[in-house]
């Protein structure tokens, strides 16, 4: 039998998605179902003076209206899930609906429930909220200043947290031959899954059971948190994530709206559906990034890097989101040395409340920002000491022999060979020739830039003891059950929760190899808290490295038991049996064998099992990884800038990623492409913009640029494979590498092109207008 792992198997999940037979939240219709709409604050900061609901209540078809006051004492505040220790973290209560004080445009003030989706929107328009506006502050640096408007009365200077890690011994920075400093801004962007958020609640008044279909990346976390908020037993509360139109981190968060829908369904004893609108999504769903990063990199003139000091001032928005405290601290700060052997590092983060929508994880979550600062500053260091940026990187790479390698902050990188993808990428672009060509074109007055990003990221969340020690309110191990039916067909359950990644397929490949059965005989169940034992969902590129590993181990357990049964039936010792290609074969006796299907039948019938053996063939495994996994790689971008229009022509984009063992090259490449599109999107086009009053001025797809097909060249992607020792698959993570690498890569290319003007940094996104103005100004000065 051909090995499934490592081959580009076409996806199992596609048949339903290609034929319109997916089951997304808005496709679900239940008998007697009502529709909900959340009335949201139009003011960034205000006291609520009054809310008039009568007209809405009297509107035909309206069933209920709730305000924050109505819910007081009935639903608890929504807690964060990441209490980062040692940073004086302050978590203000976030009530599902604001009670008397709104803190951002989009803050929920009322919930309207009506018989159909049009009526509920009509009625929502009839709610009159009188606000007494307060001064607003949207920028985190301004929010920290004395005298800035305070969002939460008892939180001084709006500072939610001040986190520090590492210490650079005195004298290192002061006595360094070279210190390069720069301040970067990694702007606020929107994860933008094409399906907005959605929730449907259904309550059974007889049994007291509540079901919540919810567009969630982690239904078990939703159940854990919302059971507290709603005051319902986890045993009577089922959360199901149906098919989802993407997540990208934006659907990790446990949101007020989801609590409201669960509450309303229970209160009204009728199913309630809430489907977020796009413009609503952009004010109400968690955004990503929004971090000011000041970096100092110290080293010698020969390029030896010695120390890095980083300060991150992060905008957390108006409240602390589910993972809000962890993104700009642990996720960002522990990896500031990147792929380089820099002995000393100091990271500090200020997390600040502002009158904006909360921020949370977005593809990479802290890692793209961390990669951004190190990959940008190393380029500037190279420029300062007049060394080729590739040479400087290579000189400081953590050497292959050094793994497992402990970085300056104590993280242990599992495995790596950073030269391998670098060399492959250099070969792909023909680097030396490319530099010569750049030189030639520069002489002709053209602006050509070559940008690199030789990143490493931390993913595969993760070792429970470690995530617990850093305050995460979850276990991040993973669980799988492999259930073998009497026919030999298999249902596998797993606690990760795919939403586009294709785990039905990749995980089935793992099972098919383990059990020696066709991939068509395997079906997966994810994303349902009633069917799947505790699990932790899909984020942090953890699914394959942790969930896939659990699947692999559970499959081993099935084989182990099946082997005993086969030995018993064949009347030989277990040691005389070898299992290959789905057959339990007595060594050296051809034909004396049992198929996997034979044993599936025997086990389920239990007519003749070894003494003391339990019937059935089913195994569960809870896999707790010993460490995170650390994928790495090299990305290269080549750009040409049109001086007359400011347009950036992304001419080439080469990625060579090492994500450990690749289970399915086709879907892995798809993940890389998607990640690159989002990272390059951030560098060149995307940006969430608030005005001074806290109004979001990029709140629709007319104002916020999501990249289109014509924005990209043909991406040249490739892999190297350095297996991870942390899990049996050797897999690392592939979901986030593209984004983590590409923001810095694209920026480095543009800054390289503009280096002829002495430019060291520009603020993203690099819109044509911004580039044109810069070029015109510089040309004028020359």
């Amino acid at each position, binding site marked *: 039998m051909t090995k499934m792992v490592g081959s580009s198997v076409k996806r199992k999940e*596609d048949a339903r998605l290609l*034929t*319109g037979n*997916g089951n997304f939240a808005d496709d679900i219709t239940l008998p007697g179902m009502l529709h909900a709409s959340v009335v949201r604050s139009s003011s960034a900061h205000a006291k609520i003076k009054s809310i008039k609901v009568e007209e809405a209540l009297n509107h035909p078809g309206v069933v209920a209206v709730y305000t924050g006051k109505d819910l007081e004492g009935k639903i608890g505040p929504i807690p964060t899930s990441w209490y980062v220790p040692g940073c004086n973290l302050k978590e203000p209560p976030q009530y599902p609906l604001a009670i008397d004080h709104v803190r951002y445009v989009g803050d929920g003030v009322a919930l309207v429930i009506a018989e159909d989706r049009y009526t509920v929107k009509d009625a929502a328009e009839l709610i009159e909220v009188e606000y007494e506006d307060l001064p607003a502050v949207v920028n985190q640096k301004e929010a920290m200043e004395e005298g800035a408007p305070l969002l939460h009365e008892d939180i001084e200077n709006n500072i939610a947290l001040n986190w520090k890690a590492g210490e650079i011994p005195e004298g290192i920075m002061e006595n360094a031959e070279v210190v390069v400093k720069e301040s970067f801004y990694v702007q606020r962007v929107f994860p933008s899954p094409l399906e907005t958020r959605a929730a449907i609640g259904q309550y059974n008044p007889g049994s007291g059971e509540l079901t919540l279909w919810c567009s969630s990346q982690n239904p078990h976390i939703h159940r854990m948190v919302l059971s507290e908020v709603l005051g319902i037993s986890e045993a009577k509360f089922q959360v199901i994530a149906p098919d989802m139109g993407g997540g990208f981190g934006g659907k990790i968060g446990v949101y007020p709206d989801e609590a409201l829908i669960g509450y309303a369904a229970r209160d009204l004893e009728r199913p309630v559906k809430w489907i977020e609108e*796009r413009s609503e999504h952009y004010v109400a769903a968690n955004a990503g990034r929004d971090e000011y990063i000041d970096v100092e990199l110290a080293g010698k003139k020969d390029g030896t890097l010695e120390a890095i000091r980083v300060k991150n001032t992060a905008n957390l928005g108006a409240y602390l989101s589910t993972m809000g405290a962890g993104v700009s601290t642990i996720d960002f700060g522990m990896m500031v040395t990147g792929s380089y052997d820099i002995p000393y590092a100091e990271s500090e983060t200020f997390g600040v409340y502002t009158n904006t929508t909360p921020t949370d994880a977005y593809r990479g979550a802290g890692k793209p920002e961390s990669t951004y600062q190190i990959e940008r500053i190393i380029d500037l260091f190279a420029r300062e000491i007049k060394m080729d940026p590739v040479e400087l990187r290579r000189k400081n790479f953590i050497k292959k022999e050094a793994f497992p390698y402990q970085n300056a902050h104590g993280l242990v990188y599992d495995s790596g060979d950073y030269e391998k993808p670098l060399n492959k990428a250099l070969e792909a672009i023909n680097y030396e020739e490319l530099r010569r060509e750049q030189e030639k074109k520069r002489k002709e007055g053209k602006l050509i830039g070559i940008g690199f990003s030789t990143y490493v990221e931390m993913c595969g969340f993760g070792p429970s003891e470690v995530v617990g020690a850093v305050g995460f309110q979850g276990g991040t191990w993973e669980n799988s059950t492999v259930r073998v039916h009497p026919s030999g067909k298999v249902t596998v359950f797993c606690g990760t929760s795919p939403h586009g990644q294709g785990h039905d397929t990749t995980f089935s490949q793992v099972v098919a190899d383990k059990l020696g059965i066709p991939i068509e005989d395997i079906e997966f169940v994810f994303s349902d808290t009633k069917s799947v034992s505790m699990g932790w969902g899909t984020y942090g590129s953890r699914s394959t490295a942790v969930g896939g590993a659990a699947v692999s181990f559970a499959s081993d357990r099935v084989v182990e038991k099946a082997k005993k049964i086969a030995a018993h039936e064949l009347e030989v010792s277990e040691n005389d049996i070898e299992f290959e290609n789905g057959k339990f074969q007595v060594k050296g006796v051809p034909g004396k064998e049992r198929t996997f299907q034979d044993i599936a039948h025997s086990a389920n019938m239990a007519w003749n099992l070894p003494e003391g053996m339990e019937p059935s063939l089913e195994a569960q495994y809870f896999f707790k990884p010993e460490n995170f996994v650390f994928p790495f790689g090299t990305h290269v971008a080549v750009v040409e800038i049109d001086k007359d229009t400011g347009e950036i022509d992304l001419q080439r984009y080469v990625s060579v990623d090492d994500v450990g063992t690749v289970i399915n090259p086709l879907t892995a490449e798809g993940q890389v492409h*998607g990640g690159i599109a989002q990272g390059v999107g951030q560098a060149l086009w995307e940006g969430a913009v608030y005005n001074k009053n806290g109004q979001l001025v990029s709140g629709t797809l007319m104002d916020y640029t999501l990249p*289109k097909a014509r924005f990209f060249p043909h991406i040249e992607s490739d892999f190297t494979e350095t297996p991870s020792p942390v899990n049996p698959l050797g897999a690392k993570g592939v979901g986030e590498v593209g984004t983590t690498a590409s923001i810095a890569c694209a920026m480095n290319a543009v800054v390289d092109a503009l280096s002829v003007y002495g430019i060291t940094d520009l603020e993203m996104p690099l819109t044509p207008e911004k580039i044109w103005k810069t070029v015109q100004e510089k040309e004028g000065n020359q």
Partner: protein
Amino acid sequence: MTVEKKRVSVTANGQACSAEVEPRKLLVHYLRDDLGLTGTHVGCDTSQCGACSVMVDGDVVKSCTMLAVQADHSEITTVEGLGTAAELHPMQQSFWEEHGLQCGYCTPGVMIAAIGLLKENPNPTEEEIREGLEGVICRCTGYQFIVSAVQKAATRIQETGVNLNSQRLVGEGTQND
């Protein structure tokens, strides 16, 4: 403010369908909520994303931008009118083989838009495909495998001689009203 409902009758994927709707109802909601054709999705509220693209009388239309009453007596093709899981349309088959979808939410609209593109330009270059997909947004794939899927579909359609105007339920052009 009770509004008189209007009867809207269409041929959807070859089947005669009819429902009474408010005059303000969007075509996409008529298709999804009244006809049960939930394969067509809504991704935005400003006609940018194209997830709701369907064919109306042979033309690609964003069904969030058209009222149901405007589609009265028209022939509509949605993703459900392409192929079945057992017998995929060449466009679906190519999306499957080339991994042109991840979450699958934009996919129905993208495939409809791509069929519209191939009707006008049966043999597009990579650049023409990228330009031709201006009306749709995919957040998952980075578009590369969508582009290769459309290229493959173009070849497959030409080789097999599939007529996009008559293939199963793809609209026959205007014939009503």
